[in-house]
């Protein structure tokens, strides 16, 4: 996925035709654009010399044709050049997305999603500007200099040096101003982020603010931040307002000097009025390349900084590579042998010496205090986290040797936090299916998790959209939907990670009864729960404590031999 070599060459090579055509038309444009002041000069000199009107008319037509030609070439370079950098941006965007979707959940713990998002939106855009308009502006600027400067020398060599003496200051000033505005803009953005953060909190915490009648205080605090932000904006403005005058300075100083320098030559007849007018145009033309050098370099630098951020992500390899060759068909057994696991950023192991076996058709409970390693274990079993070699075996194969697709077709895990997509309820339920499910199927599983009646009350029932622009479900409703989604996959092994924590006691019981009836021994179940009622009838219950298996056994056995289990049972009202 990583791009070899410099990304600029890579994309120029990849879109050679569009890039070269764009460049060709750009050169043609600059060349003709360099010549047009000469046409004006010809016209004025003809008028001054009192030549016949037909000659003047000819020049006017020539001028019009030149400009029309320019219009056409300008259109062409923009379109061709646009194709080159737009396609490059698409390619880079796709690479990033493809790469991100191979990464395991650990990667997303380390990297904030907001920052990864900004790679795809902001950084790709800024890279596009670097290899697009950044490169373009530089090429444009340089070619204009190489075309206009010789023409000026050819027209009046001694005027040229004198009028352009201040011009090299322009790129320097622009560059300085760009740097200055960049750093000031950054502080401004920081202040804006603070202000936005404060707005966010004001809205999210509005109940507290209203409950304690603190609206005035909150407004005062907001205004303080708002005022600081305004000051920062003004600081940016003071630099921003200088750009115009600086560019103007190039043209103005040139023209003033021209007036002084040209006076003698024109009066003495060495140079014509037409030459004077054309020359003033050329001074005009030289200002843009000078500005362009300043802009182009900073734009290119910014884009390359963006690219290096992108590269930092692309270069990281996934911790769960899908290199396995073995396809498993029917789940038979899952065996864990001497499994130790430690998070890279942590000092202590998350799991120590875990050993157990699950046979098809069993119901297995997994209990233990918060932080004992239950979720980590489930993540290892489903290969979201990388297990060490030789520790987890499915159907007698090491988990790393099994293709991820076939592995996950065998196991459906329902994660702790219910995550649903902004799609319809039925689409969300069918997420894990490769084909479609019948409407009856969807309704059936909604009944199993006891949510059908609530869905029926929604404006569009199973077609109701979820998410920001759709209906908002409660935590318990979301959990039940994700369980239905897991059950619908028809995977023979289902793993529920405390999936009913937000559901009230009564509903939980109803669902458990339904599950036992519907799933029973047809599926192998691994159930993580804080409520012992969910696991008390399991074939075996694993008690985890600080990353170790404290005991394995049935409910009655564990009350005898596991202190952790016994304490949980006591709190929850079981009699020993």
């Amino acid at each position, binding site marked *: 996925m990583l791009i070899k070599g410099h990304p600029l060459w890579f994309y120029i090579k990849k879109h050679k035709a569009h890039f070269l055509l764009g460049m060709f038309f750009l050169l043609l444009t600059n060349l003709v654009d360099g010549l047009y002041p000469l046409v004006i000069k010809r016209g*004025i000199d003809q008028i001054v010399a009192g030549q016949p009107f037909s000659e003047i008319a000819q020049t006017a037509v020539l001028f*019009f044709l030149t400009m029309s030609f320019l*219009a056409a070439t300008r259109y062409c370079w923009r379109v061709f050049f646009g194709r080159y950098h737009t396609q490059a941006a698409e390619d880079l965007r796709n690479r990033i997305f493809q790469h991100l979707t191979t990464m395991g959940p650990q990667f997303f713990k380390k990297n904030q999603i907001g920052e990864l998002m900004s790679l795809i939106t902001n950084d790709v855009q800024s890279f596009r500007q670097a290899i697009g308009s950044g490169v373009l502006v530089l090429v444009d600027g340089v070619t204009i200099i190489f075309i206009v400067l010789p023409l000026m020398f050819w027209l009046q060599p001694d005027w040229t040096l004198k009028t352009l003496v201040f011009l090299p200051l322009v790129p320097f000033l622009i560059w300085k101003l760009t740097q200055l505005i960049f750093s000031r803009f950054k502080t401004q953005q920081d202040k804006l982020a603070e202000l936005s953060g404060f707005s966010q909190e004001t*809205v999210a915490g509005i109940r507290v603010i209203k409950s304690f009648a603190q609206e005035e*205080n909150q407004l005062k605090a907001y205004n303080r931040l708002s005022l600081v932000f305004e000051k920062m904006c003004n600081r940016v403005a003071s630099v921003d307002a200088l750009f115009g005058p600086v560019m103007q300075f190039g043209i103005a100083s040139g023209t003033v000097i021209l007036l002084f320098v040209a*006076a003698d030559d024109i009066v003495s007849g060495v140079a014509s009025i037409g030459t004077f007018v054309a020359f003033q145009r050329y001074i005009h033309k030289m200002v843009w390349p000078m500005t362009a050098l300043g802009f182009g370099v900073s734009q290119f630098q910014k884009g390359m900084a963006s690219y290096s951020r992108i590269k930092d992500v692309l270069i990281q390899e996934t911790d769960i590579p899908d290199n396995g060759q073995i396809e498993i068909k029917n789940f038979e057994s899952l065996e864990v042998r001497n499994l130790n696991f430690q998070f890279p950023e942590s000092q202590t192991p998350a799991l120590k010496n875990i050993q157990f076996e699950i046979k098809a058709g069993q119901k297995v409970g997994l209990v233990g205090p918060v932080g004992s390693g239950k979720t980590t274990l489930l993540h290892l079993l489903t290969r979201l986290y990388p297990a060490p070699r030789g520790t987890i075996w499915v159907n007698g194969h090491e988990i790393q040797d099994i293709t991820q697709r076939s592995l996950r077709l065998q196991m459906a895990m329902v994660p702790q936090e219910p995550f649903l997509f902004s799609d319809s309820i039925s689409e969300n339920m069918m997420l894990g299916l490769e084909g479609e499910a019948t409407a009856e199927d969807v309704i059936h599983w909604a009944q199993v998790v006891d949510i059908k009646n609530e869905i029926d009350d929604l404006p569009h029932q199973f077609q109701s959209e979820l998410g920001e622009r759709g209906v908002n479900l409660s935590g318990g409703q979301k959990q039940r939907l994700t369980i239905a989604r897991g059950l619908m996959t028809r995977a023979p092994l289902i793993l529920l990670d405390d999936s009913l924590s937000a559901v009230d006691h009564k509903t939980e019981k109803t669902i458990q009864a339904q599950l036992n009836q519907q799933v029973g021994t047809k599926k192998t179940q691994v159930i993580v729960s*804080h409520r012992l009622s969910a696991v008390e009838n399991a074939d075996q219950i694993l008690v985890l404590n600080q990353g170790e298996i404290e005991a394995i056994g049935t409910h009655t056995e564990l009350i005898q031999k596991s202190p952790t289990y016994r304490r949980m049972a006591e709190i929850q009202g079981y009699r020993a």
Partner: protein
Amino acid sequence: MSGTPFMSEDQVKANITLRELFLRLWPYCRKHLKLCLAVILSVAGLAITSRILPYLIGYAIDHGVQEKNLQILKSVAWIYLAVQILQTLFQFSYNYIFQLFGNRVLFYVREDLVRHIQSLPIQYFNKTPVGRIVTRLTNDVANLAELFTEGVITILVEFVMLSSILVAMSLISWKLTLASMGLAPFFIWASLKINRRLREVLREAKKKLSTLNSFVAENLNGIKVIQLYNRVSRNRNHFFALSDQYKNLTLGSIRAYALMQPVMNLFSAVTISSALYFGGYFHQESGLAIGALVTFILHVQDFIPPLREILDKYQQFQNSLTSGERVFHVFDETPEIQKETITRPSQWNGEIEIRSLSFQYASHLPPVLKDINLKIAAGQSVALVGRTGSGKSTFISLLQRFYEPPENSIWIDGLPIERIPFSLLRKHIGVVQQDNFVFRGTIASNITLNSEGISLEKVEKACRQVGYWDLLQQSGRNLHSPVEERGANLSVGERQLIAFARILAFEPDILILDEATANIDSQSEKIIQQATAEVSKGRTSLIIAHRLSTIQNCDLIVVLDQGEIKEFGNHSELMARHGMYHQLASAGVKSTEI
């Protein structure tokens, strides 16, 4: 109010008129007439100096070069230098003051918007996602300001520039002006056309980009599910398709944009060649001076940039109009209604009386509360018990007047609550919610909520009373320890304790406590139990209780079922009755909660 809350925001087309926009923003501008005036003066200065410069060149040619007078040429050069410096100064001051002005207006708009949003009823926040309101306060306000400064003002300013150029040209020769500018309307029309096309493509592209972004956000947030449920390759293909559509729209906008410049080029080609053509003709026929002709051509060349600016800004303008409209929609939301006949109780005791209170959220929805009658003496503690949806939360929201109860149905200290001012009412009712919002700042600022009247000593005392002080000391923190956004560095229990300490700091007469159901470890559980007893001491307390121990400690238990009071009494009375309470309480034995 916006009629279609679920409609995609980018699809809404703005129908706001220029006039309306101006009228809405004028009050903010009026606050700074001085800056406004300074902008106008700078613009006038800029326009005048910009027209004098070409005139000087023409004068130099006609009187210096033609008459071979070196002296005139030299003095013109000096004058040129002076005017040029003036022009540069005007340009800077216009740019700068103009932005100062815009930033100030923006400040006022922001202030007003925050004030307004805070005054909106709680229903507004229930139906509007937080993200959307925050967007109004940030992006949309920024766009609105841009709309005003970059849009309205720039267009006006550039219009002044254009008019000054036309006047200067006509002063040289109105015939030549007419001849060379004859085709201007056609070109302006053409570029408006292209501009509209460009705008449409850009709008489409923006829409596609936001679809693409939300797709990425969802896929990254739900990466586990995507991987567990074998969606990776299908979702990649979906992304590639979106990405390709976005690319095509971008290319479309590039093509439309690429057409813009040539149109302007042609426009300048036509004007300059006709100036040359007719200028040459007038020079021979009616003796138009050559210097004047050069001046004329220089003017013509200055005509294009402001025109382009207007067209560019006009487009931006259209894009930000939707933002402006959205902000105005928020302003149009009605704030909480304050009745005119407001009074204040002569004395706050915390006595509550409910007289046949019935409530429904909207006329087409079933009633949530039905004929509730209840009298709570000052200082009494009352447990509200019932299943989810029994009306407990609604009851409590009504007490805080987050919803409008029917008149004369809720009385506090002998007054119906609709006659007590909001701020007064809410100052006397303290609330501890299930999930208590904490703000970024310090522990102290979260307890005082930045209220200046509460001393640090009082905060410390409150912390000691609820048992938070020891916890802080044990973990080596103090009142000034930072609290991260959303209290990310605090446990659920700690957030609860902060909310308790708030109550003790604000000393309300009435306490509303929505007990948390979340599982917390047994040590925090114990601290919270004690804190609950501490804060309800000496206050009228209404507790939505889930823990049997909390319920047992209350003076009165009210069992709500489907909006009605089913039973009430104390624990032993209700248990003896073997009714609904008994049922709920026994079911809760195994799960430790009801």
